[in-house]
């Protein structure tokens, strides 16, 4: 039984996941019984009433009210149970407990960003305390994305121009994958993230360390920090560092090279150009590439931008 469970469903890591799973097994179990039953009846009929001669005469049976009412009412009752049950769990998923800890989520092509009450920021990794209801207040900067954590059995679209909410409570520390499940373009399948559930104390430490957000860890050189940031902010989803062609121009050898643009102008890549490309990506669109990059104005601070530029310089 457990083997089937692990085969079909990811581990249940939120307080509500088990509820969803019970309904999942109930519907699939009864469906399986119905399917096997009906197919068995058909196979039996096909064998038992196979044509024996071309002159076979069949009885004139047109309908049977009692039978037809029975097989309408029983499934009706069953589906109403499934409806009520599903709705009840949905209400549990929807109604946020009052004491929930709030995290803001911003989605954009193709990263997840999380902002905390004390100004801490995180990209791609959602840090939360264990055994406490967490409320996510989500919005998108560009197109519709969808925040999906299979381990929690939860999903919510993230829509530009409005806020959507979801909540969960993960009782145990651990890690779970976040997918984007609303198609959002070339980097859609790389728009992954991770929920990292900490013990309460560990989480408080993390939060305090990152208060204000975005300063260089002491042990890293600027270009090393830049590499880390490029990973975290998913720059490398579109910009390769090995010269291969992706959605955006490669970073390898770009510094100091001549870059030509859609409008026919050219420029030698220097710090100013890179900075402008990060803050105003559509000011100069490199020839042959789509203008799909978002601005990072107000998201990356000067120190971070400098670090990323230092990193790009190392890619020769």
């Amino acid at each position: 039984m457990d083997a089937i469970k692990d085969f079909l469903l990811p581990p249940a890591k939120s307080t509500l996941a088990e509820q969803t799973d019970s309904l999942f097994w109930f519907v699939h179990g009864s469906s399986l019984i119905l399917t096997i039953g009906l197919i068995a009846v058909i196979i039996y009929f096909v064998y038992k009433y196979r044509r024996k001669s071309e002159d076979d005469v069949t009885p004139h049976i047109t309908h049977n009210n009692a039978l037809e009412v029975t097989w309408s009412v029983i499934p009706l009752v069953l589906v109403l149970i499934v409806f009520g049950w599903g709705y009840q769990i949905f209400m549990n998923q929807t109604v946020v407990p009052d004491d929930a800890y709030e995290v803001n989520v911003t989605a954009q092509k193709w990263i997840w960003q999380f902002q905390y009450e004390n100004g801490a920021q995180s990209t791609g990794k959602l840090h939360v305390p264990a055994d406490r209801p967490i409320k996510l207040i989500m919005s998108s900067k560009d197109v519709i994305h969808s925040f999906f954590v299979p381990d929690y059995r939860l999903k919510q679209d993230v829509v530009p121009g409005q806020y959507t909410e979801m909540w969960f409570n993960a009782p145990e520390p651990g890690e779970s994958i976040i997918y984007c499940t609303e198609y959002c373009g070339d980097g859609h399948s790389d728009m992954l993230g991770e929920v990292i559930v900490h013990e309460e104390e560990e989480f408080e430490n993390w939060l305090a360390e990152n208060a204000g957000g975005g300063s260089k860890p002491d042990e890293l050189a600027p270009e090393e920090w830049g590499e880390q940031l490029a990973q975290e902010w998913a720059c490398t989803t579109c910009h390769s560092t090995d010269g291969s062609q992706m959605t955006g121009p490669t970073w390898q050898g770009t510094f100091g090279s001549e870059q030509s643009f859609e409008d026919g102008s050219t420029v030698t890549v220097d710090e100013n150009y890179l900075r402008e490309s990060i803050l105003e990506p559509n000011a100069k669109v490199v020839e042959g590439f789509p203008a799909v990059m978002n601005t990072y104005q107000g998201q990356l601070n000067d120190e971070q931008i400098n670090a990323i530029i230092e990193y790009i310089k190392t890619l020769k």
Partner: protein
Amino acid sequence: MDTAESSSTSKKIQVQRYKPDDNPEKHYLNEETGLWSWLTTVDHKKIGIMFLGSITFFFFIGGIMALLVRTELWTPAKTFIEANTYNQLFTLHGAIMIFLFLVPSVPAALGNFILPLQLGAKDVAFPRLNLMSFYLYLAGAGIAIFSILNGGIDTGWTFYTPYSSTTGGAVTTMVFGVFVIGFSSILTGVNFITTIHKMRAPGLTWDKLPLFCWGLYATSIIQILATPVLAITLALVGMERILGIGIFDPAMGGDPILFQHFFWFYSHPAVYIMIVPGFGVVSEIITTFSRKHIFGYWAIALSSLAIAFIGFLVWGHHMFVSGQASLASMVFSFLTFLVGIPTGIKMFNWTATLYKGSIDLKSPLLYIFGFFFLFLVGGLTGIVLGSIALDVHLHDTYYVVAHFHFVMVGGMVMAFLAGLHYWWPKITGRMYNETMAKIACGIIFVGFNVTFLPQFVMGSQGMPRRYFNYIEQFQPFHQVSTVGSFVLGLGFLMVFYYLVRSLFNGKPATANPWGSRALEWQINTRPPLHNFHHTPVIVNGPYDYHKPMEEFQLGLAESSHGDGHDSDLEVTSDGKEIKAE
């Protein structure tokens, strides 16, 4: 000569038996020949065949795209194409299969050919409109192909805003193509409804209407009522892209969720446009091959209408996680379950029809049994997805992909193939190789399950759809699925091979090779240019297998002015005397 006399309270008419010819010298294919006669024909049979040819072409184009998508998924990240190419491929696979194959498949191709024959009519009500419907389809398809060659589209077949308002490529052109195809669909619907209301043969009352006609009738209602909404929505998307009027894009003050409401208001009923005619095919084939009266005629006929109407009220179940109100989600979920009931009723009625029948497991029936299993799985997983809490987990995962492929391919394509095999002798006058047909059915069935069953597992585990890249955990499932898809493709190729081959060296078909009582089998094979040399008179229902065949081959002894559809003529079986030999 057999004579029979039918009388009613109002009028007495003379009827006589017209035995169909097996291989008449003159038929619809050789009375008018040449390319021009095809291009300008108003014959519903030829238009049906032209639709059949076109949808087959697009089925293979869409199929090749599906195989490319599946091949790319052999490994995570890039196997042989770029992410953007992959996105365009799955978009076009969906758009082509839905708008150019599934929607017109049974209604426009098989329905066009069979509907007037089943009604005892010489053609559809508006033959020229019918031809225009075909040309609109071609024009729309042409525009769609043009857009593929001019930048392509990568929005998914759903064209969700604001992605579709902002992405590059030929979205506007593609949307216009779909807009034009929509009108083809509307015209077919108008034509069928009028034909069913006004062109029925004397004696063909509503309670004797073949269930295939009921299916097409329900479908036509949806086509007429829902397709305009799609047209309006797509026109709005076009306006937003060209004129910058903010309707759906929040950057211009629009509401992206509004698009989803509009889109699914058409596209959910469109699911029933695709499947309900298939239900009609099932009823015809089950009765013919079990030589038995359909069980629960009215339940099946009315459940199609019920599905058509309730189907309009469930679109919000595509949007449980979109941020719509919880109350809206509850109502949509509730109505979704209600639409499941008439579908279930049909399954039970078909099964009961087999009881005490005389079942001949010929290939059309075999395809129907394939339909039975696959559609059952598709329908029941629909119940899973209709439940809000489960949908929150499964929405936009491979579970949904598997679900709608079970319904659309497992249900509709199987029903379409069943119908094609069933009516093939009547359409072409040739029999195909029965053994090959059965083997191909088996290959398709196995290939289909190998392709899509693993996708249920992946989806439950959380694998999102429309993913170019995926985590390694899913690779074995993707690989099994890819292998299955090639088996499936092979099965379809085999069907294509033996059907085409039968045109050249198939055994000539007799007028009624299956011993059916339905009216389309009581005329010559191949059918005459104007279907009936006489005005058919209907005294029995199409499934009255307890009555002798000669009672199904009656026509007016003298036809007064050709069309024979005198509306005040009433034939009842009261006081009827039939002298058989």
